[in-house]
């Protein structure tokens, strides 16, 4: 294994949502190539703490690419330069000794900065709350094998369902569009028989919420797909657009507020 590295970090520091932020330069010394990117930041934070300085704040939890917490914009790429991984899965052997690394939070009006590198992504939750579900209660449902689902459909639905809600698609997009994220849930449920009864009301409710949150429009540049750690494809956006227009043109009767079938 190669030796340890010394790096220069340019890190966005911002006390809270209201206070303007700025880049601050730090040295990351004696970094092992086996460390993950977040472990490298841990090392920097430990040394800041020992000097009684405020450590750099970033969101993280699982550190294995599944919870969607981590969210750094590294050298101009959400989740860093490698494809199909999250920041917590990025290892320092990707970088070389002496390199300068720029670390920023997601930049989007709909994701206000909470502190330093962490943003408020609750807009994503509100889009899901608007209709990202099947309106059934606990209990009283049919046996799981009553409705067979063709394996190809189940597999496609699964691919869409793997979205981790990290927000890299928004960060990557020059319009800060949330179409990839929103369409992934619409496609998952739209493909499955369980999602059919509310298919058209769901798409309208979720799109309306997405617009209300202030996300931008999609102009098909495909940056979201390229940066998505879970390789959610643009096909999802096509599926959503299709359903959205069908709902508008032919199914106006479904276009009521999505009350979840109380």
């Amino acid at each position, binding site marked *: 294994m190669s030796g340890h590295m010394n790096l220069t970090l340019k890190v966005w520091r911002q006390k809270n949502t209201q206070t303007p932020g700025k880049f601050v330069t730090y040295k990351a010394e004696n970094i092992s190539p086996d460390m993950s990117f977040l*472990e490298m930041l841990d090392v920097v934070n430990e040394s800041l703490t020992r000097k009684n300085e405020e450590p750099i704040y970033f969101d993280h939890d*699982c550190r294995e690419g599944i919870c969607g917490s981590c969210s750094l914009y590294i050298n101009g790429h959400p989740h860093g330069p490698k494809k199909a991984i999250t920041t917590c899965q990025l290892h320092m052997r990707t970088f070389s000794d002496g390199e300068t690394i720029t670390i920023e939070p997601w930049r989007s009006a709909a994701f206000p900065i909470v502190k330093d590198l962490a943003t408020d992504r609750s807009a994503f*939750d509100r889009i899901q709350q608007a209709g990202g579900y099947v309106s059934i209660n606990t209990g009283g449902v049919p046996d799981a094998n009553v409705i067979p689902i063709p394996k190809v459909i189940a597999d496609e639905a699964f691919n869409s369902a793997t979205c981790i809600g990290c927000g890299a698609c928004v960060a990557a997009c020059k319009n800060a569009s949330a179409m990839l994220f929103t369409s992934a849930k619409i496609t998952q449920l739209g493909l499955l028989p369980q999602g059919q009864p509310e298919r058209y009301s769901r798409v309208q409710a979720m799109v309306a919420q997405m617009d209300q949150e202030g996300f931008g429009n999609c102009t098909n540049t495909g940056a979201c797909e390229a940066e998505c750690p879970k390789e959610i494809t643009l096909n999802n956006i096509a599926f959503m657009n299709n359903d959205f227009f069908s709902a508008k043109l032919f199914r106006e009767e479904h276009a009521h507020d999505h009350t979840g079938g109380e």
Partner: protein
Amino acid sequence: MSLDAKIPQGPLAEKWSKHKFNLKLVNPSNKRKYDIIVVGTGLAGASAAASLAELGYNVKSFCFQDSPRRAHSIAAQGGINAAKNYQNDGDSVYRLFYDTIKGGDYRAREGNVYRLAEVSVNIIDQCVAQGVPFAREYGGLLDNRSFGGSQVSRTFYARGQTGQQLLLGAYSALNRQIHLGKVKMYTRTEMLDVVVVDGHAKGIVTRNLKTGEIETHAGHAVLLATGGYGNVFYLSTNAIGSNVTAAWRAHKRGAYFANPCYTQIHPTCIPVTGDHQSKLTLMSESLRNDGRVWAPKTVETAQKLQKKEIAASDVKEEDRDYFLERKYPSFGNLVPRDVASRNAKEMSDEGKGVGTTGLAVYLDFAEAIQRLGEDTVRAKYGNLFDMYLQITDENPYKQPMRIYPAVHYTMGGLWVDYNLSTNLPGLYAMGECNFSDHGANRLGASALMQGLSDGYFVIPYTLGDYLATIGPKKVDTSHPAFEQTKQDVIAYNNKLLSLKGNKTVVEYHRELGHIMWEYCGMARTEEGLTKAKALIKELKADFWKNAIVTGENEEVNAALERAGRVADFIELGELMVTDALTRRESCGGHFRLESQTEEGEALRDDENFAFVSAWEFTGENEEEVLHKEELIFENVKLTQRSYK
């Protein structure tokens, strides 16, 4: 106080349905007069909050992450058990019950485990109806896989992301109730205490992690679903934020803590590379179907491997010790998790470990690749091999994987009765944070089952009984106990913030982890545990003198959050050691060197230890008091496990 588990009388198979009939009901029009607090949005918490809101209760739901979808349940990989018998291979509720009781080494309650097996089938129906995309066969029906500890195929899965898909299902049900206004969601909010009024839990104190504001919330009942405490070992497969704080603070307000020393150590994790390591990554148990575990026969060879003077491929066949195959000819590499883990540690302890740290053994696929071809091996395990390569930069198709055991799950937790109520009335515990169903060792794919069983199918019934008893009289935060508890929390946080010493909280956490792993991990002795207890006491005293906690309360302050959690882990660590000292038998995931058979296998002592340990907190720096709940077995016969 006497411990009444409230297991219903009568035949095993009828206990739950009879009990449901006997429970009091809350009149539908009265349900909206009750406020319920649910802390945690993992499988247990999200499913409970959604189900209770559907019934009409007003629910307040809390999590410390920025979204309920990020609870640690999201990381579960392998699958979820259910006695559907879709494979027609002889599965049944009774068999799932039996496997789980036996897997837990006869330290769980028959009544609870039977109910778990019984409702397991409903869970799968519920999740499919929500649109959870489980794996399917070409005919369109649900697919199953086999898991350790059973001879039938009953594990439902969604690739290697079962936890994610189940949690997103529960999250969607929760979202629907948030949209309908029946659940009020508090994210980035950490519960720091329970408010007790006249002996009943009536609320919680929280810290808003964005502003630092300390707030109080009142409810007719408080439900904790705050996950496991594996991070007491510092390194584990848990998420960084997983912690014991909610359960521990509840314990200090009177809730008993049961079987704290029962932890599960998973044999196949990627080994530690250095002190910088912040967490460990699990490699699925399924790899042991084709991988062969070995270590070099001699210490000299091991040292050469550690110094990289030679590679694994340079070690000749006759110089390798396939120790599991040698010691357990009939089960070989497929011995249960605890046996595999203990043997890997023994090899490393004898100096025969590999990798730069010497804390690893090999899991070798060379023979499988030769037998099946690389393509077949890739089809079976490709994603795991990729993950391994990503983390270690070593190609497992070309050289053996290095693996080492890691802490993975905690069977211990808050003591609860059959209704999931702690001994503190009004306080309930669900999911991994209670102790209930897994005894001394949890079988694979049964934690997800338990979390969802508790949340979807048990608590909606049992909670009603308590609520009907206390009545819908409004509760609010005006009782002085709320202000008092809030002031206690503020004072405690200020004490933490006043620490401006010379050692970081992470360093204390790491040190605690070393002590726990060394003396209260897989193999334990009276002497080691006694030493650990003294070391932890010292660590605690040192922490409260020399730790550094930066920043203030009125801001986002990760240092303060971490300090509070580590302080609780230190106290819990001491109780775990105390519990382990008391339990002078080997069982399930833990091995007391003083209690082994002539062949060196775990020796359970049913005569003296067939009980649940429930610990009562009696005051700061006081010894806790042990209460025993005897375990009664009417249906299964207790036998010693053997895998020779």
